[in-house]
């Protein structure tokens, strides 16, 4: 396999044509003793500068694995990417040498993780960890790096940044730790930021603050953001597009507006209906029945059919393709029309 060199990537600022990041038919599988687990089965989505794509799904849907494949931080083996492309400025990252990928990682595509306490190294100060970006990638001295770290901590609005720069992660609150993760991720002005459940581990009030911070940082720098979450509530205010994943596939792809107005896949519909709503107080909360599928023993046909209220006989035998529903919208449901119209079964 020929390795593309990094030189083919346009320098920062010089944007090529087409999307900033283009995930195309990505497959990821894990070799396990019990068999091959196909965690991601042909996922595609694209991201433009300044745009936020929310990837939605429950745990095990493959949304984080997709993100890790984009970052190139999957453990290989047991993970394997049998097919698909991740094009960044048109260059397939999966074909780059490990060395070239290291240059992209952190500097041009950065990532923040769910649980900042375990995602930050417990034995180094936060200043050390943030400034490491500048020392390693920009060749800065320790002192200059620390100065930069303080600036960044200010930028993500950590109070008394100067005094706290030499503290350790465990000395911060959950929200502050997540801010530190963010500071580290945006240190080198990445073009893409992947946020993997950035607020799941936090209190509701803190969640809102963190989402606000992310949105603001994004506006300032025009970076593209991939927001991975299982929480539809988080998505509404910040996302432009939503990709809903189920059992390693994208089942619906649409703008936020369209999805909230009328979902075109029964799974999305179920997710929307299971959000508690003030105006429906007193009504029984809807829950999608059944369990997420066993990835080692996937249902035939449409993976969602055992749990689907719209199921027909052909759902059990034929896997639905991603139907185009006008414009840029897709749904992987044979009966998307019925779902869209809201006719139950």
């Amino acid at each position, binding site marked *: 396999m020929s390795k593309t060199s990094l030189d083919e990537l346009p320098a920062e600022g010089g944007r090529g044509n087409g999307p900033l990041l283009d995930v195309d038919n990505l497959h990821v599988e894990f070799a396990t003793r019990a068999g091959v687990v196909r965690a991601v089965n042909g996922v595609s989505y694209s991201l433009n500068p300044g745009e936020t794509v929310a990837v939605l799904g429950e745990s095990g849907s493959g949304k984080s694995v997709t993100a890790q494949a984009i970052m190139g931080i999957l453990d290989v083996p047991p993970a394997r990417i049998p097919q698909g492309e991740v094009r960044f400025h048109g260059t397939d990252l999966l074909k780059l040498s490990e060395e070239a990928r290291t240059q992209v990682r952190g500097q041009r595509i950065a990532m923040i*993780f769910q649980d900042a306490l375990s995602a*930050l190294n*417990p*034995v*180094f100060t936060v200043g050390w960890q943030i400034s490491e970006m500048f020392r390693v990638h920009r060749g800065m001295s320790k002192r200059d790096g620390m100065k930069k770290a303080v600036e960044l901590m200010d930028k993500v609005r950590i109070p008394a940044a100067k005094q706290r720069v030499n503290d350790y992660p465990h000395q911060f609150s959950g929200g502050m730790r997540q801010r530190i993760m963010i500071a580290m991720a945006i240190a080198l002005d990445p073009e893409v930021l992947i946020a993997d459940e950035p607020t799941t581990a936090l209190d509701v009030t803190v969640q809102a603050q963190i989402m606000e911070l992310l949105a603001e940082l994004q506006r300032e720098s025009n970076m593209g953001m991939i927001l991975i979450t299982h929480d539809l509530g988080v998505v509404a205010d910040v996302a432009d597009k939503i990709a809903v994943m189920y059992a390693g596939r994208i089942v619906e792809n649409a703008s936020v507006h369209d999805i909230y107005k009328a979902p075109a896949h029964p799974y999305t519909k179920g997710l929307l209906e299971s959000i508690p709503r003030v105006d429906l107080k007193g009504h029984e909360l809807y829950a999608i029945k059944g369990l997420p599928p066993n990835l080692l023993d996937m249902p035939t046909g449409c993976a969602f059919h055992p749990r689907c209220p719209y199921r027909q006989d052909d759902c059990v035998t034929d896997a639905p393709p991603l139907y185009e529903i006008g414009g840029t919208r897709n749904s992987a449901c044979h009966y998307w029309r019925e779902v869209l119209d809201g006719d139950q079964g």
Partner: protein
Amino acid sequence: MGRYIIRRLIQAIPVLLGATLFIFAIVFALPGDPVEALAGEKRLDPNIVAIIRDQYHLNDPLLLQYWYYISGVFLHGDFGKTFAGVSVSQLMAGKIQVTLNLALVALVMEAVIGVVLGLWAALRRGRATDTAILASTLLLISVPTLVTGFVLQLWLGVWLKQTVGFEVFPIAGATQGLKSYLLPGFVLAGTSIAYLTRLTRTSLVETLRSDYIRTATAKGLSRRRVVGRHGLRNALIPMVTYLGADLGALMGGAVITETIFNLPGIGLQLYQGVYLREQPIVVGIVTILVLVYIVANLVVDMLYAVLDPRIRYE
């Protein structure tokens, strides 16, 4: 950190008293009269027996006897006298150095070999190198010191000397400086090397699975930096803890090694003390070894606090 250290120090006191009391009680709570046992077949003048009994506080209750002993140890460094009237402290003075040398040589070998093998295995996890290293640790753990001692004496001492024509590894005594300690040091370290190898491997493998390693990779750091800086620094904590605590254990294990290699340390002296039924020597040496053990563990607690900020700021 200060509070943490003080707490550890305070916690060490009852352990120290308990352990020394246990040792003391075992040896001196014996049924029968040690003075008469010492005299053996001879019949001693009852007056002399009384004087000796008095001198050794043998008529006092056990706890009081213990108090005399332990206060002597801590206040004057006095470990009592043998029944022949020789000071135990003086007996040990020249010999503890030999045992300390032996334990330190063993510790260095353990650290170097154990860490190198452990890291190597961890980075080649699941491959042939890893399997080979794990198999050899199994062997090192299983073959008792007693056996490795004699086998290496025969093989690296005698056989090698005959083959190359000169003595590579001395097999007895401590007269040739560092060289004398190489073979016994390795024998003493054997099991510990294996355990440290396994610990290092496990520790690094576990560390490399943690979330912050994934973060470090996502920061675009080289594999070398991720493993060497972020991984190793965390994996180091249990390794250093084990190593430090092992110094005391190594000195305790010296009794077998010194006996095999005829090294004139306190281990050999302990063996002779047991053989000659000189309780004061036995108690003195075991007490000092337990003290070393406890102090080594205290030092480890401090090191632990230095290495792990989560403890330091507790």
